[in-house]
């Protein structure tokens, strides 16, 4: 039992000092019938590292590793190359094993990191202020809708049909309990976004419009008209970014008038990890900061006049305000925020722009080559590193057929919108800097086969 410092001798002498006859004595408040008298059913005894490695290694071996095959999946999680120094830094015990920075004297490292992270996020998203992270993009999206309700005191949110269907699901779940009304729709395989529908739907009950940018089909569109229309009606624009690398090339939602910009930060520093942990980005206008959920690190001056950092505006939070808090979130995504911040520091503006350009150029190349396959059409007009194809066959079986040839060839809309026949032939393909020339050649050849 390598993790336990006490020896049996230690235990006996401690019991003696406490004055207890046995360990059982200390559990005397637990009713007899709730005490387990034997080991947990079926769980083997403690195991060596080697044995644990073998058991978990055997499971890991059952999975097809993204990095081992031509890989083109996106739809809310992107495979980017993370520099080795990022992983090194987040493994430093002082970051990895630190507690929540409630005691600023012993947490200046974490606090300064969060402070820097917030500024990076705010600048990236084009906003004035950002928080210290949320769980992920989908929960941040829902929190934004709730925040818009609190700000506007209106209960109807209009969701773009380009919003990630999982994000829509999460919002629907929450709305069911909070009583918010959600106006939702499924996308169509069309180059144009549903901006017109959104604008037309705004009414006096509308708290916010929620758009994703780039959207689930990879489409990008100027958000200014929607922002203007929303603002004219006293509503807010919430923008959702699931691929923050895009903002190294295309305008930030905040620059186009979005009032709250949330995002999934996984692309930068975090990695795929089968969906989590990820890191939710949350930014808004300074005037709304008191309605913002989550933690916020701020600068202050310590007793000696030195600059220092603290968690600030805590009166928004559950540990002070309890049932009146802006959110129940407590533990957020600290370490992923650190990873994001380190990777972003390594990139800087120069690196991020180059990274975004490479992603875009690769994606354009792949889009051109795949849409030259007979029967395959490119749906998008504009896009960043992800686009949608209309195949001449159903995309879901096509994806499985590609797996047979050791290619992870995209996300089928059939997987995301099961039962929606109008989307069944849609295949969403993401192309990042990690895609090699050979990967593209293989994808093209395999898609040509399965698209027959």
């Amino acid at each position, binding site marked *: 039992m390598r993790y336990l410092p006490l020896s049996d001798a230690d235990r006996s002498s401690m019991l003696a000092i406490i004055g207890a006859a046995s360990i059982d004595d200390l559990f005397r408040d637990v009713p007899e019938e709730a005490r387990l008298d034997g080991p947990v059913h079926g769980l083997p005894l403690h195991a060596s590292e080697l*044995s644990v490695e073998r058991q978990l290694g055997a499971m890991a071996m*059952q999975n097809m590793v993204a990095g081992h095959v031509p890989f083109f999946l996106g739809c809310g999680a992107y495979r980017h190359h993370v520099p080795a120094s990022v992983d090194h*830094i987040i493994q430093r015990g002082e970051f990895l094993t630190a507690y929540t920075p409630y005691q600023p004297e012993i947490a200046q490292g974490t606090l300064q990191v969060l402070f820097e992270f917030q500024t990076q996020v705010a600048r990236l998203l084009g906003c004035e202020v950002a928080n210290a992270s949320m769980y992920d993009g989908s929960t941040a999206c829902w929190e934004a809708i709730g925040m818009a309700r609190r700000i506007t005191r209106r209960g109807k949110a209009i969701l773009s049909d380009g919003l990630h269907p999982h994000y829509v699901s999460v919002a629907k779940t929450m709305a069911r309990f909070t009583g918010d009304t959600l106006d939702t729709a499924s996308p169509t395989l069309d180059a144009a976004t549903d901006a017109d529908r959104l604008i037309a739907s705004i009414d006096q009950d509308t708290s916010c419009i929620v758009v994703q940018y780039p959207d689930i089909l990879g489409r990008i569109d100027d958000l200014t008209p929607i922002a203007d229309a929303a603002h004219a009606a006293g509503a807010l624009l919430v923008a959702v970014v699931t691929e923050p690398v895009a903002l190294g090339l*295309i305008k930030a939602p905040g620059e186009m008038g979005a009032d709250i910009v949330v995002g999934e930060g996984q692309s930068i520093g975090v990695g795929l*990890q*089968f969906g989590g*942990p990820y890191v939710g980005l949350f930014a808004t206008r300074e005037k709304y900061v008191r309605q913002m959920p989550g933690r916020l690190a701020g600068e202050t001056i310590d007793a000696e006049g030195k600059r220092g950092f603290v968690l600030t505006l805590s009166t928004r939070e559950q540990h002070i305000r309890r049932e009146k808090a802006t959110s129940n979130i407590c533990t957020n995504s600290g370490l992923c925020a650190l990873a994001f911040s380190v990777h972003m520091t390594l990139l800087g503006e120069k690196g991020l722009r180059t990274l975004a350009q490479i992603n875009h150029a690769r994606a354009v190349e792949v889009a051109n080559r795949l849409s030259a396959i007979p029967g395959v059409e490119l749906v998008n007009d504009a896009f960043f590193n992800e686009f949608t194809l209309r195949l001449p066959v159903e995309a879901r079986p096509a994806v499985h057929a590609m797996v047979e040839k050791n290619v992870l060839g995209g996300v089928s809309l059939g997987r995301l919108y099961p039962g929606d026949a109008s989307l069944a032939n849609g295949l969403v393909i993401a192309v990042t800097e990690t895609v090699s020339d050979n990967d593209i050649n293989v994808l093209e050849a395999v898609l040509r086969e399965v698209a027959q």
Partner: protein
Amino acid sequence: MTDPNQSGWKPTAPNASAYDARTTTGNRALMLEEPLLFEIGSRDRTGVDFDDRATGPSRIGDLARITLDLPGLSEPETVRHYTRLSRQNYAIDLGLFPLGSCTMKHNPRLNEKMARLPGFADIHPLQPQETVQGAYQLIDTLAHWLIELTGMHSVAMSPKAGAHGELCGILSIRAALEARGDARSVVLVPESAHGTNPATAAFAGYQVENIPATNEGRVDLAALKARLGPDVAAVMITNPNTCGLFEPEMKAISDAVHAAGALVYCDGANFNAIVGRVRPGDLGIDAMHINLHKTFSTPHGGGGPGSGPVVLSEALSPYAPLPYVERNDGGYRLVEEETAHEQGSDSFGRMVAFHGQMGMFTRALSYILSHGADGLRQVAEDSVLNANYVLRSLEDVLDAPFAFSGPCMHEAI
């Protein structure tokens, strides 16, 4: 506990003390202050190289970004900036954390290694199911042990942290009540509860009322019984509680709550103190979140990421959130919106994109397998032993208000 090695110790350098360069060994030179990234970085510096690649025509329309203004640093500067910052933190790796309601425990590096196996770290949440059978197996295996350890009926794996788990539990309760057409409006929460409890109940649309505590720091059963009625949806109890005490009348509380048609939510943040010794399922609990970042050694990371699976009673299981993993003959499959109904789920819906904190599941399972049945039980015993030892040792020095209430479980006030 850390007696010097009795067998004696002897320096291997016999003449060492004859060395006469008497410098100061204190590490004063190692106290570093660190400027802000924005003070040292610049827009044209970068710590990432790319292989040159010709860019073709753009497909972004007129959306080109003009201002961005993100400072960059070269790689050595970046490593230094963060290494120096890290040294301004205290952490488990540096010493004990005798902390409040959070169990802060050793984070084994084996867990980190396991979570970084490419077969777990480098797979996409939307990969076709046949390509991620091992990932589903991992989730299912961890779920199995969480159920066994708690004696509950099922577990919802997707909640992202403890508070998110609370929400999952309370939403399950509300969904179950709604399913039987029973609209109730109040959730009772003890005053000593963690702030997430009332915040969660309020978020789920409930009014929050206090449960009174006895002088010994426990739930006042009589007062609770008096308050129960057709308007009470649930009671949220922290057990072992925030004062470090086990609620000896937990079963009676549960029975009273159930008798009144309400459900019992247990805040399991302190589960560490009873894991392997007590099964919450035997205490009549309907839902309890487990902080993998407390009880199962996944790192706290300066405030996350956490992971908050919620174990559920049979009554609540049909309402568990989507998606979930199911084992069938041919392997594992993910139950999502598409097939939930066929599977007999009345799920209240999805709480989060994808499947929850996979990276934390790997670590938690690595920890559970490492400790095994004997080790986990010992964890609870040692944690209770340590807490009582500290309590008794401090009794003479400090005022320990609940010292005579009974043994404390994992922490002491």
